[in-house]
């Protein structure tokens, strides 16, 4: 497969970036998108040019490290997959592929296609946890009965890998789906109810502080999320937030 890649190149966080064009040949349909970039980088290194910097880690779709806005969509045109699981068979011979970093004020570009997503970590640190005693007398979580539906919904929310596709897809660069998933996974469980009030207030406050936009319910985040995190989580977080605010 012969392709034309238009890739965002930016030396560092302060430099002005631009799209650079790279023709590439010999791409197989069974390659993943990241393997295709590996091929390009090998060519660039052999020519003595600087390789394209991009985030990746597990390459199994479970770590949330890979990102990339591919032809105008986070993680590319396929659904429910991360960039590392996106196969080149989704493209046709002769295609032009535009590759950009996830764009948001709260995700500043570090270099080329790598963005700083530590704003997500700060939202997590603001309340995305359950305080448990780990001094040796921890009660097994299975000892507390949990309604099956709540357990399933909590698990589904917990499958969020924090990749940031929701922010990248949203026209407002809103982080509501990510924050809602992290609030929901605990809000639905008995262990999470103890700190529910502080959790939602603190996490939403941190989300706003990071400079993410407001959610306008376009639903783009849900469609582009590689883990299929549902908008129901946002409604749940809104309920949690309103009730927590009224409690004070």
């Amino acid at each position, binding site marked *: 497969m012969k392709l034309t890649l238009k890739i965002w190149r930016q030396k560092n966080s302060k430099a002005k970036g631009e799209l650079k064009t790279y023709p590439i040949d010999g791409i197989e349909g069974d390659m993943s998108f990241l393997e295709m970039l590996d091929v390009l980088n090998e060519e660039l290194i052999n020519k003595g040019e600087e390789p394209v910097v991009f985030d990746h880690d597990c390459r199994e779709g479970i770590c949330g490290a890979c990102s990339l806005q591919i032809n*105008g969509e986070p993680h590319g045109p396929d659904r429910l997959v991360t960039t590392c699981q996106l196969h080149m068979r989704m493209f046709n011979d002769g295609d032009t592929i535009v590759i950009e970093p996830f*764009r948001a004020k709260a995700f500043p570009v570090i270099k080329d296609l790598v963005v700083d997503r530590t704003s997500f970590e700060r939202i997590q640190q603001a309340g995305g946890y359950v305080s448990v005693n780990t001094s040796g007398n921890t009660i097994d979580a299975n000892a507390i009965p949990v309604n099956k539906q709540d357990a399933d919904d909590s698990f589904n929310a917990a499958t969020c890998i924090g990749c940031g596709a929701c922010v990248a897809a949203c026209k407002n660069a809103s982080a509501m789906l990510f924050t809602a998933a992290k609030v929901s996974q605990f809000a639905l469980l008995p262990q999470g109810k103890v700190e529910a009030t502080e959790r939602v207030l603190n996490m939403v406050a941190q989300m706003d502080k990071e400079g993410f936009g407001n959610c306008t319910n376009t639903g783009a985040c849900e469609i582009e999320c590689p883990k299929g995190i549902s908008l129901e989580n946002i409604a749940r977080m809104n309920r949690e937030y309103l009730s927590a605010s009224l409690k004070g």
Partner: protein
Amino acid sequence: MAILTSSIARKVAMALSGLFLVIFLAQHFIINFTSVLDPETFNSLSHFMGHNFVVQFIAQPILIIGVIFHFVMGIILEIRNRSARQISYKSYKGNKNSSWASRNMIISGAVILAFLGLHFYDFWFPEIVHKYVESHPVDETRYYTELLQKFESPVRTGLYSLSFVLLALHLWHGFSSSFQSMGWNNKYSKALQGFTKFYAIFIPLGFIFIAIYLHLNQ
């Protein structure tokens, strides 16, 4: 006071003011539709709305505040949302994951705002002048005739109809979205969404029908 300034509080404020306007719209439509069914009923309802103390001095100011609040908050949110992505994408395919109506509420809202300016110029300001500045004697039969006069012009009828198309798009996303903003997403949501989509088409279409009917029945 995070409850007043947080992103979720703003969403809820937009939702509540929007729902209030949705209810007002239904009431406005019902009264307008009587002009097609029976001009006398239209005249008496219009006279009641124009002279009832509660409608004039309690409901009307609340409505005006609701409209202004919805627009001002909408513009504030748009500015904040634009600043959340300072460098835009070279390639962005919003149509792959969301509807045009949901992505362009500011455009449909701006058209509705412009329409409201025209609507106030046509009806509200002349009514205020008629009642409080020129102090004409009470005439309970003038409303239907005045209404007909406004729709004499094909340009005005066209402008009104176009605005209602944009209103339909605004309602298409905004009405169902307001329930999501308030945390309402459950087993009844699908049925509710069906109702909101029906409302988003039926009410603006009804307004267009009234405008064209009045234009053709001069």
